[in-house]
């Protein structure tokens, strides 16, 4: 009876895809659902792993959702992750005795600030200079890793300072990894902003029709500016999580190809790349789906260099499920099978 309302919800398909994937795991991966506690009071298990590993992607896809909703795109976030990682690791320093050169709070603040700065740069190019978003963010995508290399002087800086590992690990006394809380906090923050401000409305308006938005008095360039700056902020936070996971800054590999995963997460979540309506919840589910896929592959013992192929196949299937055209095809196939009975109902209406 309420089935129709459930299936027409924007979150239905992304959730269905995720559940299908989880179901596959439950059947084929031993002990997928089991969650245990270690002696020092931490929870562990594959589900926790998935959340732990997907947190940085969730954060990235939050920022990406807004950018895409304005019918833009930010392909520099992967490189910004590398810059943020380089900043935080360089400031804390790679001293073997585990002492921080600068306070960690300061390092974190600086890394996030650099992320915002990168976002402002992108916003400046897109909103003020009116450069196409792909081209504008391509600049930082290519230059970003170079900047990260400069910061780390071409080295991989390994951080031995213990508290740094708590960002993506578990703080003693806590049961879950901190980055899960960070991601949750970011999602809540965005939810709060959506509820209490009109940014969501303005972002959609600009994404659907920028000219009309201008005529309605919306400052289009301010909206774009905010959106890119926020994406940079998300990339900055994501850089902290990524570097803490490996306790090092690797300018070449930190956040590599993450921009593509983030775009994919947004697309899986049901937001159109042409802009307009966006679905924050969908993007979060999309990000978790992508990470679940990766974890599944590892669990099944597929070599990491073959991973992209499997991922591509899964993505094609997921996208087909969500495609309107495909749904219409399936619907008309069903209709033909039932001898056009569906057609008659329409006539009555």
């Amino acid at each position: 009876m309420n089935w129709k309302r459930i299936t027409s919800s924007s979150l239905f398909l992304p959730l269905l895809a995720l559940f299908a994937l989880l179901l596959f795991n439950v059947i084929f991966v031993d002990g997928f659902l089991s969650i245990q506690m270690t002696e020092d009071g931490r929870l562990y298990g594959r589900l926790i792993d998935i959340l732990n590993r997907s947190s940085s992607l969730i954060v990235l896809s939050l920022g990406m959702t807004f950018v895409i909703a304005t019918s833009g795109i930010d392909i520099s976030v992967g490189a910004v992750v590398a810059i943020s990682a380089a900043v935080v690791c360089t400031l804390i320093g790679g001293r073997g005795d585990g002492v921080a050169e600068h306070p960690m709070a300061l390092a974190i603040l600086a890394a996030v600030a650099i992320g915002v700065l990168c976002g402002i740069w992108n916003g400046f190019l897109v909103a003020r200079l009116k450069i196409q978003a792909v081209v504008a963010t391509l600049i930082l995508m290519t230059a970003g890793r170079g900047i990260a290399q400069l910061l780390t002087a071409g080295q991989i800086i390994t951080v031995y300072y213990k508290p740094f590992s708590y960002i993506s690990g578990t703080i003693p006394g806590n049961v879950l990894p901190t980055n899960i809380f960070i991601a949750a906090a970011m999602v809540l923050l965005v939810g709060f902003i959506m509820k209490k401000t009109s940014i969501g409305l303005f972002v959609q308006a600009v994404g659907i029709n920028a000219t009309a938005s201008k005529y309605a008095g919306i400052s289009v360039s301010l909206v774009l500016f905010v959106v890119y700056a926020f994406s940079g902020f998300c990339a900055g936070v994501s850089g902290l999580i990524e570097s803490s996971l490996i306790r090092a800054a690797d300018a070449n590999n930190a956040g590599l190809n993450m921009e593509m995963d983030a775009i994919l997460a947004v697309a899986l979540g049901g937001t159109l790349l042409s802009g307009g309506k966006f679905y924050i919840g969908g993007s979060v589910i999309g990000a978790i789906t992508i990470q679940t896929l990766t974890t599944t592959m590892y669990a099944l013992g597929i070599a990491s260099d073959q991973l992209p192929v499997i991922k591509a196949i899964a993505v094609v299937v997921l996208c087909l499920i969500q495609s309107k055209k495909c749904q219409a095809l399936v619907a008309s196939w069903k209709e033909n099978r039932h001898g056009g009975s569906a057609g008659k109902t329409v006539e009555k209406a």
Partner: protein
Amino acid sequence: MEQVLLEMRQIDKLFPGVRALSKVDFTLRAGEIHSLMGENGAGKSTLVKVLTGVYPRDGGTIRLNGHEIAPRTPKEAQEYGISTVYQEVNLCANLSVAENIYIGREPKKHGFIDWKTMNERAVTLLKRLHITIDVTKTLDHYSVAIQQMIAIARAVDVSARILILDEPTSSLDEQETQRLFAIVRELKAQGMGIIFISHFLEQVYALCDRVTVLRNGELIGSYEVAHLSRLELIAKMIGKNLSAVQEMDQTEEKSQPSADVFLAAKDIGCTGSLVDVDLAIHKSEVVGLAGLLGSGRTETAELLFGIHSITKGEIDINGKKLNISDPMTAMRKKIAFCPEDRKVSGIIGDLSVRDNIILAMQAKDGMLKHIPYARQAEIADEFIRLLQIKVSDREQLVKNLSGGNQQKVIIARWLATQPELLILDEPTRGIDVGTKSEIQKMAVQLAKQRGMAVVFISSEMDEMTRTCTKLVVMKDRRKVAELMDDEVNSENVMKAIAGGEKE
């Protein structure tokens, strides 16, 4: 009697939940210009789309020269000899004129495009329509009118039996329209059947032989234009009896301007778009900006609203000088602007009616001061009721409304900001007769009852003379005359426009 070219019988078309066409008959003869009339949503464009294969039909037959046809795509329809020129020119602005005409069927020599032949053929083809232009230049060198004619030339060359013109004149000025009509008449003389869709009654009377009226997807009838009065036609279109239409036709008494000047523009100009315009707008006054398309009417309005900044002169509001650098500055001074192109600069199509109505208000309040949902709903409902906007509910997407209702949503958006000056740029273009007169009356009422200053811009002269107490006539980016009270009539406007010519 001329020979019957096209016969559509008992055409049905269903959309989910709506019967868009119900047993519609339509007959087109060779060498006839036939108008399809009806309010928005009457089924005119659906009928055309069924004919051209854009939509599959759900019932009925189409016969062309006695043979049954069933075009499934516009391309198939073209092969049968049915071509359409749409309201929006759908050619490629970055290709040359010749390329646009022969795209997809370029003359070839040794497997390569034969540019010389192509350009020569294009020149000959255009000459037949009395257009002499450089066909090697890209399309965007030419005005919309010329582009429209190029589109017609292409359609005629592709197929020479039936030509469908869907609102071809909506972005043309008077002279351009006349030129287009000359071409259409010539094609008629060559024996083509032409289907002409337009909202301009005058043009239908000037050009067409017969008219078929649709209402709510049903056929009302086909008539000889010469034997049908304008009022009768309108009555058939909106489905009311003659006396009701006559009543509707009566104008609201004009608003008397107060002595207070709300806005005074002194010698304002903007490089490349406007030269030295003086303008005083009083409270409770309806000022008309008359002139041909591109004469500077819209440009003036855009300067007053801060879409562009003035480069010369000054604008005073309530006696104080103000630098209007962006729309927000104008909005803070209670100026509102309903732009000319509803689709491009008016509606946000994928947002709901409610979002569209509160948008300007919210923009004025800023990002951080969110209007609570309950208040938004209240405001939206109030204006839906006040302006009689036809919607299923306030959450309906605005793109699914008819043109007239979309226009009302935009007007509601601005009335919600409680403006003191309302600028309406072509508020009645492309909308049906009933809504047209509603909007004209509303402009006058706002001035009368709320003391609002209204600037009315329109290409339809009688609309302006009905509503305005002052007409500012523009020509070539300059103001050429200002007509007051009794001087306001179309003759004087024409004189003013023509008079400038001799100087």
